[in-house]
């Protein structure tokens, strides 16, 4: 019988290393590079599905709904609508680390600051992009808020060229 049911006493813990993350090499498409290059000219590129006509930003290769390749690229507006938002807890020194750095210590966010992450549906797109909302207080953000892109002053064809979005005021 393989089963021997018994009361077990405290066992020992055997330490070992199993993280194999460092030795992986993924293949990824070059679509995102093209998207980042477009940002240099303030162009936000999406891919158009020939089946359902949806425009997906950032571009992707395959429309899962139609099971078709999305080869055509289109440019969408840099103005859009907030479809959802999440507000972080107030930051504090020593509370959390990202990539081994303390965001407050490095000056990235201020003590007690609350970062607002938003999903924005840009005009002309059928998908959300995930970005940060600046220029508004946490209590001011609402679903349906009109926002526009905040561009970096010197754009280098990187994802960071599209810094954030801010409320659209006319």
């Amino acid at each position, binding site marked *: 019988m393989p089963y021997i049911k018994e009361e077990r006493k405290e066992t020992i813990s055997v330490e*070992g290393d199993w993280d194999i993350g460092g030795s992986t090499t993924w293949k990824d498409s070059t679509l995102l590079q093209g998207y980042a290059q477009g940002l240099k000219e303030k162009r936000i590129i999406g891919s158009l599905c020939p089946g359902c006509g949806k425009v997906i930003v950032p571009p992707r*290769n395959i429309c899962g709904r139609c099971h078709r390749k999305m080869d055509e690229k289109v440019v969408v507006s840099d103005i859009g609508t907030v479809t959802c938002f999440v507000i972080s807890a107030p930051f504090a020194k020593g509370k959390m680390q990202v990539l081994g750095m303390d965001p407050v210590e490095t000056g990235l966010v201020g003590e007690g600051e609350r970062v607002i992450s938003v999903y924005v549906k840009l005009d002309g797109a059928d998908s959300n992009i995930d970005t940060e909302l600046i220029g508004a207080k946490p209590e001011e953000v609402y679903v349906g808020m009109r926002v526009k892109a905040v561009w970096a002053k010197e754009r280098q064809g990187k994802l960071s060229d599209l810094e954030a979005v801010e409320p659209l005021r006319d």
Partner: protein
Amino acid sequence: MAGRVAIVGYAQSHHQHDIQMTREDMVFEVAKGALRNAGISREDVDTVITASTDFLDGRTISNLYTSMAVGAYLKDESKVEEDGAFAAYYALMRILSGVHDIALVEAHTQGSVVNPHLVSSYTLDPLFERQYGFLNDISAAALQARMYMNKYGVSEEQVAMVAVKNLMNAADNLNAHRKMPDVTVEEVLNSKLYYDPIRELTMSPVSDGACAIVLASEEKAKEITDIPVWIEGVGSCQDGYLRDRSLYKLDSLQKAAQDAYGMAGVSNPFAQIDVFEVSEKYAHEELMIYEALGLCREGKGKTLIEKGMTGKDGEIPVNPSGGALGADPICATGLIRVVEAAKQIRGEANGYQIPAYRALAHGQFGICAQKNVVFILGSE
């Protein structure tokens, strides 16, 4: 079996090292290809079963990003975390249950993502063998080879002959990865030694590849195609852990094969099955597989290879496609065997066709072929 299930379409990639495609594109191509081959569209599919593993893919929930690529959007989908032949086995169960009629089965691995031999050491008992640090799939296979060879007096030349046969066969197969039309026994024996007696040419290459098939219930299969390949029998079995089994033979494969034979009404596989497609990750395993499949008595696998009976023009051709030694995109390997067996029955194996009415396909997974699944395919 209560109902009958047939393979009605298939596709596979051109297996190679370091393929210049993302996994999603690779999966998309074979899924589309299999549906096109079957002459159906994605809308006809009821259920999708994929095979890949988190460790080999280097990402948790390995099917997360490939679900849409395979065409599983709003389909009853599941993932089998082992060889693709097990995915076909699960899809077969799903159709036999009567809940689904048409299943798309897909399997892929890009061996270039993570070194699969590194991954294999993570399958070991974490409290003992892994800490010991010596064993991985290659060294365990070396132990297996030595035990088998010592017990039955098999020489390295005889093992090398398996590699020569399969690598030469692979040369005729467009999809194979390692093609060596002029390889000789000497060349195999002089190839790089990993763990004695495992050499570069007696173990499978690390390939990137994908494979997909479409399965259908009897009624649907007859609507879809004129040349259905029927699944006559299936068997699956897992062996005990490495320490707790006899390494010199493949008990679990033997049991799986017996189950499959019983279901298909095969009493004499040597005479009743025309062609065999087996997953031999190492050359010596093919000899062990001959024995486990009941093609010869225990320890007599060497005679079959020496007499050339398992060659392309032998009495029982084994791996005319080149087998796993020809291409081994790990999770896809077993499913590729199913496809190659189906190709033989449909008469579509260009360049390595063997007149076949009944074929056997075998998939394995785990260290020293711990898990096995056997399919008997037929044209009737």
